[in-house]
């Protein structure tokens, strides 16, 4: 009985068959001898995963890495070609909210349809209807057809029903990206609640911060293979390594005829080699190399370090007397910014810009790198100020166990 909510994938793999032509009865009959043109494609292979009841596990990977196929197998929508997919209990997928919602029906009617699809019996729905209504905050509109609903209302209602169905396994994908911040924190709270009751949650997302906040363990998929399954921070760093995009794709569209061309922009670790994963306290150098195609007098170099979500942590500029230089056509420039990494765990982006002014016209070209910081545990926020702690009084009581789990201080850190 206590195994409800347990999910297990045992060497699971899914192979799709793609036919080159649209299968028609007539052509099939005629071509029976000739054989069919088809190609096989392994979307996912050799995946091993166990999720215990009450756990939240993340699944990350690039587009095309097999995430949606995995999601389908976990929902029971498609069966594996090899291996075993085992889910104990009721599954509620939140894949694209409002599964089964019909625009002509009212909210109330759609709740009943949706809930039945998710496996609830009529009496259960009757009993829980009021709490669904309360959670979704749609009281006044519950009897109007849903074609009049905003997308936010859709999400709220869909999520309310999915959670009310008391699933043993909850599958979530990008759907939570919709909805405002207040609603999202309501969702997180409700998920915490059902988690403590033994529901396991799988989060398939591109939103790495959400994954880090919610999931203790994460699976990394790449081209259908399982690259890593374990502690979320390590998983995210693996994801970034796999995500390393070739230089050419990382520059911003330059203006044609620009007098400057950025040749490279990299982050160098303490050993002087390019990297995109660093630890707190490391000293890194951001190095930009550019070639000038024309004479430029006193260009300015800048860097902007921003959190993945966009908040700017630090920005600075060389438009100061001691850094002014001029370049003639054909000359090269090297701009280096050395930083000691005092950041909490997270994904960051550094953007470097070269600005110039020719006559009255000013313009710029820019380039960026993204990287991941493995910061000190328990530290959250925009910067790790490394406060010196002192605790006095009482008697020392060293522990060898894990430190007490900290509450997600989402509201404090905002």
């Amino acid at each position, binding site marked *: 009985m206590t195994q*409800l909510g347990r999910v297990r994938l045992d060497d699971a793999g899914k192979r*799709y*068959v793609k036919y080159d032509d*649209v*299968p*028609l*009865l*007539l052509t*099939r009959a005629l071509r029976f001898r000739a054989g069919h043109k088809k190609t096989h494609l392994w979307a996912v292979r050799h995946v091993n995963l166990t999720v215990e009841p009450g756990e939240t596990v993340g699944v990350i990977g690039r587009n095309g890495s097999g995430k949606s196929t995995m999601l*389908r*197998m976990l*929902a*029971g*929508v*498609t*069966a*594996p*070609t*090899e*291996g*075993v*997919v*085992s*889910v*104990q*209990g*009721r*599954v509620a*997928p939140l*894949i*694209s909210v409002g*599964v*089964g919602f*019909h625009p*002509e*029906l009212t909210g109330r*009617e759609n709740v*009943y*349809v949706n809930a*039945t*699809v*998710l*496996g*609830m*019996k*009529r009496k*259960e729905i009757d009993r829980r209807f009021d709490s669904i209504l309360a959670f979704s905050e749609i009281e006044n509109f519950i009897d109007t057809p849903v074609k009049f609903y905003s997308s936010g209302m859709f999400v709220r209602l869909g999520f309310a029903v999915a959670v009310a169905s*008391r699933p*043993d396994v909850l599958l979530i994908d990008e759907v939570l990206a919709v909805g405002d911040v207040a609603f999202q924190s309501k969702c997180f709270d409700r998920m915490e609640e059902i988690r403590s*009751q*033994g529901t396991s949650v799988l989060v398939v997302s591109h939103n790495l911060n959400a994954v880090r906040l919610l999931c203790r363990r994460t699976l990394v998929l790449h081209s259908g293979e399982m690259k890593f399954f374990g502690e979320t921070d390590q998983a995210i760093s693996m994801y970034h390594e796999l995500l390393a995009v070739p230089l050419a794709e990382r520059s911003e569209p330059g203006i044609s005829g620009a007098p400057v061309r950025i040749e490279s922009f990299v982050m160098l670790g303490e050993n002087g080699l390019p990297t995109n994963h660093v630890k707190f306290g490391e000293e890194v150098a951001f190095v930009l190399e550019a070639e000038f195609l024309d004479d430029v007098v006193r260009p300015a170099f800048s860097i902007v370090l921003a959190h993945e979500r966009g908040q700017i942590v630090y920005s600075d500029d060389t438009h100061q007397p001691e850094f002014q230089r001029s370049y003639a056509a054909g000359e090269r420039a090297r701009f280096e910014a050395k930083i000691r990494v005092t950041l909490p765990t997270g994904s960051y982006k550094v953007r470097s810009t070269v600005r110039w002014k020719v006559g009255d016209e000013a313009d710029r070209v820019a380039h960026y790198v993204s990287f991941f910081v493995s910061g000190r545990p328990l530290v959250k926020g925009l910067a790790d100020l490394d406060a010196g702690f002192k605790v006095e009084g009482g008697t020392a009581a060293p522990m060898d166990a894990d430190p007490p789990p900290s509450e997600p201080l989402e509201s404090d850190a905002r």
Partner: protein
Amino acid sequence: MASVPVEQGFELRGERTRLSTLVRDLWRSRELVIMLARKDFFVRYRRASLGIIWAIGLPLIQAIVYAIVLSQFVRFTTPISFPAFVFAGVLPWTFFSTAVALGTVSVIEGSALATKIYFPRAVLPLVTVFSGLYGLLIGTVVMVALAAVMGAQLGPALVLLVPATALLILLASGFALVLGALQVYFRDIKHVIGAIMLPWFWASGVFYPLTRLSDDFRRVIEINPAVGMISLFRASIGAAAPNWERGVWWSLGWVVLLFSVAAVLYRRWDRVCVDLL
């Protein structure tokens, strides 16, 4: 407060499904079928101005038109008055042909739902069959009333309406299940069915009595499953041809065949049809 789960979950090893699992899951989904059938029915008639009246109004009008037009140039001897006779054929035929046509595309159209959450795929064709039941039941009452009004002698034969309806549902379900599955693999099935519908209609004795056919011709026509099904409806109001039971045996044979084929198809395909949607 631990809630008792509706289903204990699943364990998928490979792409095929056991027949016992299919049947069990389908039985467990009966509330879903009823819910979706009702939803289908209400949505269909919510926007129409006359609403539910269309459900039986249309077959009724059809029957009257056939009766009027045909009696202009053919004299059919029918056991009861011609319009009532025709309606007894049009009613089951309309339910049947609609269910088959909609059932064929039901899985494709239901892909929005089916690709996101699992439920036995057979639910989709069955929903199209069951959503027509409301109209059928009301129409049956109208048929009996019409027959009485037009002077037919109604008696204990009315009990035959029960097996008549059952056979109709079974036949429609059988075809819907098989064709719905095939349509996923062969996208032109619905066009084939569309083309067959009209000749099928002509060959089903909807608007003429079987007694008008030569004996040999009639024996061939009876292979058509719709003939037996319509005969049962006619027999309930005393309007069937002699030896109408023959057609019913053929219809039952079709039911057995169709469900066997459906079992084979769905075992293979229930958990993987999504891959093609």
